[in-house]
């Protein structure tokens, strides 16, 4: 990993922006340094180019590979996790996923299941639209507020 200096001023600025906007996480990239500032006191530095952490849907679903530093936060069609748990993209192993990129969905349709304490919780579509990005993979652990997918 290459040597880089930590830009404290930039982190302070991002942290202030986090408070100001009410977002849970901000990620920026400048040449070879990527900085993510998230609520809960987590500050992550990573040398770019790094594979975005949470990509590639399961099965034959085409993964919408996001360019590093792409901002999904604040996207009007972003669906975030209502809870901490483990994501399942299909009702059970071996069956097709609930949704794939390009699928049209109706409001209330099940998009994913999140399991916590052996309780299965569906995440449903808040509106009619098309699934344009799937940001998690099957059986991935997720935090509260983590981006799951985008419906446009």
């Amino acid at each position: 990993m290459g040597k880089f200096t930590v830009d404290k001023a930039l982190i302070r600025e991002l942290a202030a922006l986090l408070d100001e906007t009410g977002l849970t996480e901000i990620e920026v990239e400048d040449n070879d340094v990527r900085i993510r500032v998230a609520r809960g006191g987590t500050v992550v530095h990573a040398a770019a180019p790094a594979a975005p952490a949470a990509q590639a849907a399961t099965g034959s679903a085409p993964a919408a590979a996001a360019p590093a530093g792409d901002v999904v936060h604040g996207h009007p069609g972003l669906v975030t996790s209502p809870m901490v748990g483990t994501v399942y993209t299909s009702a059970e192993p071996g069956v097709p996923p609930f949704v794939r990129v390009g699928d049209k969905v109706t409001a209330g349709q099940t998009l994913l299941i999140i399991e916590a304490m052996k309780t299965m919780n569906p995440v449903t579509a808040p509106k009619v639209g098309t699934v344009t990005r799937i940001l998690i993979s099957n059986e991935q652990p997720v935090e509260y507020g983590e981006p799951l997918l985008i419906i446009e």
Partner: protein
Amino acid sequence: MVHLPDGYSIAIFDSIDSTNEEARRHAATARDRTVYWAKRQTAGRGRRGRAWMSEPGNLFVSLLLKPDCPLAQAAQLSFVSALVVSDVLLKAGAGDRVALKWPNDVLVDGAKICGILLEATSTGARVEAVVVGIGLNIASHPDDTPYPATDFRHAGLEDVDADQALTWLLEAFELRYAAWRDRGFQAVRADWLVRAYRLGQDIQVRLDGETVTGRFAELDETGALVVETVAGTRHITAGDVYFHGTA
């Protein structure tokens, strides 16, 4: 004959695909505390599509609940349900042979006697309904499971039929459910810990691509399993717990 606590209603089937499926089909319209009971199931299922053996003589029941809470809190009903089943087992004479394994396995002599599957339906981040499916081994248990299993008869518990077990279960459920709605998770946590299997001992938790090994320290205020490892304390919300030398 099943005796229902006040506020409960019941639908009884000789045979049905799955009581959880039936409850889910009525999730939008049914009232809080509607009970779906079948004498046998043709497509009984457990977590992640695993089949649940549904021989007559055992209890297959689903409770449809409308707790009006955020999704994240509905998972606490997992602990409520496990406690309720342990209450039934205590009534049947199991005494200190009963133990609870995180989050909602109920054991007698270290063997699984019950399966609990919770499925929520939601509108946004609010819960519309939570279906609590309980399969209780009374007359028989499967012998081809990857973990030890048992049933009332095999364990020498009181000789009850499914009707009697369900009456006890609903009676216990109403007490625990009311306490949870009034006082939240703190009404559940202490009782669960008293009956916890191997609290304070070394455990392994298998997570997605990782196994955490450490001491089972406690349950935190959200229900997460607290494990003290050499690298620090971990709070775990999903995973399968293993003890050395047992399931």
